[in-house]
């Protein structure tokens, strides 16, 4: 059906018309177009007939003491990839980033990574110990932590293996699976500096070793400099207690650094003069390079971005005309300075609109208000952070790191969008 006024208008609209729409706010764009474009043959019964919800009563305030998203949103859930790991208890699932907007990730669908399952640990049973090279080895209860000066910061947490399945080539056909090992929350808690100060770090204490109360303990070594810089322990996320799967009642927050360091159910902070070389910083979370040697202690997550819509799970469902291209950008080295978007696989770029003031080591949302001509697109996004670091292509990364380093794949993602608006994970050359 090509004779629709909408198609004709959509294609013939010039720059001035676009600019008008942009300033008028694109939310109203559809309506403005529709008024001049489409005409319905019959009135819409949803409007002309009284609907049940307009006549009968809805649920009372006592129906839902703690609410879940309305059932229409049932598909917006974490999903996992069974073949990735031997067992769902030592495994990972993925945030439905394709279906979310804004920057804060709701806790209920924020990805989980456990090495021995998510454990139930009550505030009453919680103890935090600081040991090692300190003046006074200390033990705190959860209540004690609530009496310390409290801080609030928003940070992304990205698993080092996010996009790790894509080293060998395009593999998983969904933004949720290629980029969903990430979440972004507002944390409330106590700075590690405050805690360490209570115990008094001895001069030779140059590392901390943090471990959890679960069977894996997931111990990691962190240099003292980082510990005293911006690390914190968190007990609230997005305004409410942490969820079990994110370490209730207390987790560590290590801004900008790989998620594996963000120890959940934090039970001990040891102060040492050297790293421990735990299993999670030797067998895992080391990056095997082409010469057979491996980088160790690759903590920082470098600048990265992805278009969340359109993407394989979120095709363009309409014909040519106005649409929103949106995505997320982040950097473990600081704030996002700029995001560029390409529609032709990296040949030409335009700078996207950032939705809000970019935060330090936090997710930034970007938009491109686009008028689609109905032709295929090779969508890419490229993040640039305040240090001047430009998100590399996958080929640039592979040239240095080969394809077996598993972790820290921050290469540029390509979605191919065909004439029907369907999107697909591809690589281009």
């Amino acid at each position, binding site marked *: 059906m090509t004779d629709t006024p909408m198609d004709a208008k959509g294609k013939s609209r010039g720059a001035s018309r676009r600019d008008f729409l942009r300033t008028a706010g694109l939310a109203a764009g559809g309506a403005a177009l529709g008024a001049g474009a489409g005409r319905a043959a019959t009135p819409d019964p949803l409007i002309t007939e009284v609907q049940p919800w307009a006549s009968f009563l809805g649920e009372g305030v006592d129906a839902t003491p703690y609410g879940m998203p309305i059932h229409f949103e049932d598909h917006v859930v974490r999903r996992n990839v069974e073949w990735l790991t031997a067992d769902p*208890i030592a495994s990972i699932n993925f945030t439905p980033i394709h279906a979310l907007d804004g920057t804060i990730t709701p806790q209920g669908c924020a990805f989980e990574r456990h090495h021995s399952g998510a454990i139930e640990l009550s505030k009453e049973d919680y103890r935090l110990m600081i040991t090692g090279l300190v003046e006074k080895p200390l*033990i705190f209860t959860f209540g004690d932590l609530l009496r310390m000066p409290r801080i609030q910061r928003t940070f992304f947490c990205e698993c080092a293996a996010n996009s790790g399945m894509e080293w060998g080539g395009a593999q998983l056909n969904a933004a949720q699976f290629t980029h969903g090992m990430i979440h972004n929350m507002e944390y409330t808690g106590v700075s590690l500096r405050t805690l360490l100060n209570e115990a008094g770090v001895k001069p030779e204490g140059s590392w901390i070793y943090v471990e959890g109360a679960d069977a894996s303990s997931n111990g990691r070594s962190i240099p003292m400099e980082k510990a005293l810089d911006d690390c914190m322990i968190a007990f609230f996320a997005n305004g409410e207690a942490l969820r079990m799967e994110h370490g209730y009642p207390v987790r560590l927050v290590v801004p900008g650094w790989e998620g594996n360091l963000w120890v959940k159910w934090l039970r*001990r902070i040891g102060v040492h003069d050297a790293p421990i070389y735990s299993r999670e910083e030797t067998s895992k979370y080391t990056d095997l390079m*082409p010469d057979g040697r491996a980088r160790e202690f690759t903590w920082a997550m470098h600048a990265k971005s992805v278009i969340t819509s359109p993407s394989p799970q979120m*095709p363009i469902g309409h014909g040519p005309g106005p649409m929103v291209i949106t995505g997320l950008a982040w950097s473990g080295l600081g704030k996002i300075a700029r995001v560029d978007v390409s529609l032709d696989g990296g040949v030409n770029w335009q700078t996207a609109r950032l939705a809000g003031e970019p935060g330090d080591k936090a997710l930034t949302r970007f938009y491109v208000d686009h008028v689609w001509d109905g032709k295929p697109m090779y969508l890419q996004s490229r993040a640039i952070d305040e240090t001047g670091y430009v998100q590399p292509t996958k080929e640039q990364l592979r040239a240095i790191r080969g394809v077996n380093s598993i972790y820290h794949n921050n290469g540029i993602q390509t979605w191919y969008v065909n004439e029907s608006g369907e999107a697909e994970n591809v690589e281009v050359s």
Partner: protein
Amino acid sequence: MSKCRKLITTTALMGVIGVLPAFADTLGLGRLALPEEIAAWDVAVMPDGRGLPEGAGNVFDGEDLWIDYCAVCHGDFAEGAGVWPPIVGGRGTLTADRPLKTVESYWPYLSTVWDYVNRSMPFGAAQTLETDEVYAITAYILYSAGLVDDDYELTHENFTENRLPNEGGFYFDDRAEVEFPIFTQEPCMSDCGAPVSISARATTLNVTPDFPIIRNLYTEDLIGNGAADAAAEEVIEDASAQPEAEAGEAETQMASLDPELVAAGEAAWRQCRTCHQIGDGARNGTGPQLNDIVGKMAAQVDGFRYSPAFVDAGESGVIWDEATLDAFLENPAGMIPRNRMSFRGVRSADERAALIAYMKSYTN
């Protein structure tokens, strides 16, 4: 807790262990850790051997322990079993297309083996091994890696004499020096290369789990000039997302079973699938195959090596009926202590009933 009670607790604590005085620059919160508490939790072992407790264990004992506690997942010779990680092997593969990273081929320090086994293994029963047992198992891993002889005894004293082959294989993160100069160049904005074409597509591999496609409703859909006439609903399930019912055979056996319950059981079965097979051609894996399990005595599946605890349970007459299965699935370790099914149990009674119905549907 009321203020009053809190006060009493605090006073009591002061009496026993003494609340810290408030220093000018500290808050004075918390209390001093006791030596026993530090000993219990501060168990980290460092590459130079610091943190190792006194103890010893030999390869011979280690092999027995390994067979009892580790082999079910990591193979009799630590080579790995099924989907579970191998612990030895892979030397010389780090530059291969598919590197095999193990204690033998990749790990830099033996201390990590001791520390990890001591804290986290066996999977599902962590921190149940005695100190000497951890030494013995570590000795067995060294032996399996071809690094010591079969009469070797590992102790806290000779521990650091053992070096792993790949100790020199690591270097500190050098991305800032190697990569930043390349990745901080001013990016090109236009005509940055020739037009591109697709060089690889994820769909050819076909390894992505099914997911629903999200479609919204647009005016075009309503007035009939839309791109996608089919897009009448908000969310269209991917057609392939429908689980394929294994109809035929199962149907005949399900006569007396509630099909909805069986279907719910099939859905819940995903928790069991990593270890158990059921249905046509089911074979033993990490756990025994479970055809005809309902009505059977425990630990009777042909060819499966059960734990001593399970064999005892079978000999003492445990028969898998609804009641015993329900109790076992609710709390496997509670019903048969020291068994080898590393699974925390199914909390919901409905889900357990569904799982039992599902297993029944494969019972003649």
